[in-house]
């Protein structure tokens, strides 16, 4: 009699549900997964090594490209690490702007996540609905930084510039008449804060729509409840963070537990799951979006009332204003030094972590006092999550592997770095 063997299936890297370039070698017994072996490195760009050969400031745009769906949060951790090393104080207004854009980023990330996760599970409408909302938030990115994705907006010591008073508007074109353009531009007639406030007022309704489609949907529940269960102990031991940890019922959120910037002044709740399955993680992330919306609203109110500087006046790290640079010798020297050799960060080491939409995103930086890092280590949450894949997916079916990859919210920019 012939010996019956399990067979292996190359799931990816060119696979619609591989979320980029995941190469997953599945060992299957029929449709049941016996072993899953994620291969990483197909998107490796040597970010950590590249950072060693660039000035501190030049690496900020590289951070955008790590997790390319939550750009500003990556920058945030990097800037915080430098600030910690150099002991720079960030102006309060800049802190509020950062918190607001961190939360905008969180909503951006979760919108993409819920859309793609639902698309993987077969509910194709979700992704198109969520991208409609992402469009508005990307416009906010564009308004502050000029780029819709890779913003490079945060700077060590603050943010690049203050929030704009006007929003970019739609122009008249041959596809839309004046009335349609006027309607589209209505929310954009004021400042960025007006635009965001309008979005925050609309957003909960959109979330309700998503929940109508998914939360009580029988098929959605059949596909997610009980799939990819992680016990709280295992979640801790495997080093999971973010929604992956909170979904298992452990109340751990850096924004609450180790508040950075002005999160301690914010009024928001964090959700925890009960069963630790994909459905709980879905609920946790949906709840987080509502809370992010609340935080954005609080930031808008504060930012309206409190004008002020948005970047530190320590000109060893942040460039002086154009005006003073042109009229003041000292400032001119600072400007010249900053734009030629860059900032010199005092020797030492620092770890700074933010509650990234995917989990704890940390930057460990070692400086030897030069104008570039001696060593930069990136702690990417997705990398840790992916390493738990084998344990989570064991015994599930192929279709569940797709659910589990989706629920982990992996993005290969940060995993392969």
């Amino acid at each position, binding site marked *: 009699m012939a010996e019956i063997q399990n067979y292996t299936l190359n799931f990816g890297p060119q696979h619609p549900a591989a979320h980029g370039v995941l190469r997953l070698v599945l060992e299957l017994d029929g449709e049941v997964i016996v072993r899953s072996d994620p291969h990483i490195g197909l998107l490796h760009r040597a970010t950590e090594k590249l950072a060693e050969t660039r000035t501190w400031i030049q690496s900020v745009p590289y951070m955008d490209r790590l997790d390319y769906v939550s750009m500003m949060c990556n920058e945030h951790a990097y800037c915080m690490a430098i600030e910690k090393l150099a002991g720079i104080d960030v102006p309060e207004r800049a802190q509020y702007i950062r918190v607001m854009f961190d939360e905008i980023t969180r909503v951006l990330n979760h919108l993409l996540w819920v859309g793609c996760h639902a698309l993987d599970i*077969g509910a194709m409408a979700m992704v198109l*609905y969520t991208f409609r909302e992402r469009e508005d938030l990307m416009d906010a990115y564009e308004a502050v930084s000029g780029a819709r994705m890779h913003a490079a907006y945060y700077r060590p010591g603050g943010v690049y510039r203050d929030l704009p008073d006007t929003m970019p508007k739609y122009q008249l074109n041959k596809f839309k008449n004046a009335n349609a353009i006027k309607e589209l531009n209505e929310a954009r007639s004021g400042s960025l804060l007006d635009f965001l406030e309008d979005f925050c007022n609309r957003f909960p309704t959109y979330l309700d729509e998503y929940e109508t489609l998914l939360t009580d949907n029988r*098929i959605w529940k059949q596909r997610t409840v009980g799939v990819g269960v992680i016990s709280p102990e295992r979640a801790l031991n495997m080093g999971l963070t973010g929604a992956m940890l909170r979904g298992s019922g452990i109340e751990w959120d850096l924004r609450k537990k180790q508040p950075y910037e002005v999160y301690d002044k914010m009024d928001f709740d964090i959700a925890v799951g009960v069963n630790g399955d994909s459905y709980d993680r879905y609920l946790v992330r949906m709840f987080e979006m509502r809370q992010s919306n609340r935080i954005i609203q609080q930031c808008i109110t504060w930012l309206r009332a409190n004008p002020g500087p948005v970047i530190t006046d320590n000109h060893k790290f942040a460039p002086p204003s154009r005006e003073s640079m042109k009229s003041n010798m000292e400032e001119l020297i600072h400007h010249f030094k900053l734009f030629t050799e860059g900032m010199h960060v005092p020797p030492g080491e620092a770890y700074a972590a933010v509650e990234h939409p995917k989990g704890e995103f940390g930057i460990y930086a070692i400086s030897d006092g030069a104008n570039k890092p001696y060593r930069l280590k990136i702690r990417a949450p997705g990398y840790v999550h992916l390493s738990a894949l084998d344990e989570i997916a064991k015994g599930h079916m192929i279709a569940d592997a797709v659910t589990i990859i989706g629920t982990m919210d992996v993005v290969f920019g940060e995993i392969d770095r």
Partner: protein
Amino acid sequence: MDAILALINQNVAPAFGAYWPAVSTTLWTLIKIVCIVGPLMGAVAYLTLAERKILAWMHVRVGPNRVGPMGLLQPIADGVKLLLKEIVFPSRANTGLYLLGPIMAIAPALAAWAVIPFTDTLVLANIDAGVLYLLAVSSLGVYGVIIAGWASNSKYSFLGAMRAAGQMVSYEVSMGMALIVVLMVSGSLNLSAIVEAQRGNAWFFSWNWLPLLPMFVVYLISGVAETNRAPFDVVEGESEIVAGHMVEYSGMSFALFFLAEYANMWLIAAMTSTFFLGGWLSPVPFLPDGFGWFALKCCFIIFLFLWFRATFPRYRYDQIMRLGWKVFVPLCLGWILVVGLWMLSPLNIWK
């Protein structure tokens, strides 16, 4: 028309001598087949456009609007593109079977139309065992999928073929059982007779869908599963096994699968409207019966197919099996019993 026939009888018939009756029957049947398959292929082509448009509207987007006015030439452009593309043969595929797969998929989807009554007189073959013919032919479609999946010699195709075999066989069972109830109440295997049996004086409430509501639902859902449409599209399951049995196919060989899927959708729609929605019968007494009603009912069922696709996530393979065997089959068996007792009781409405 008569003049043309007379002309043919005078000039062409003598050339065939005694074989003329056989030849003329064959020719005449072929012409009729073309008259059915031609418009059907048109309907299939425009169903792809309708699907893309309707899905687009449900997704708050525009859909194809570049080829021709409002995108109306899009299916033609797609067809031409697919015709011109190379058919790639994987080096380790079994060429003969690999080619046979798509043919086996589309042939039954078209052949089944022979017995579908478009109106009380307009039917290609008004045979008495129409329902049996339909069941027999439509179950052949799964061979195309299995052969294609096997011959491609790819793991994804193979998985798709295995899923297709399981799924289509299972749902044929519940479909067949739902039809048993229809046969019981109409007392005939002839499709025209089944439609006529639904004629009543309670407007559209006298059609089978209301008295046999559970069977209508079972049949409709089984139909969705039978055509491998969302939420039962695990055979293709693009986020799991990419495209299942079609993954290695390209150009026209792929298009044949595609056409077969959409022809099957029309077929299921036609069967559902024949068995449960009164075929060509008019829903209200003051309007005449006719082909228009049949077409309208088919379009309604098709719209449901598209609506399901836009709304629901995909079932997992084992959940589909559970639904088929553990829910639908017992439900059908129970309903057969209920309807049987109902027909024996004095409350029988199907006399």
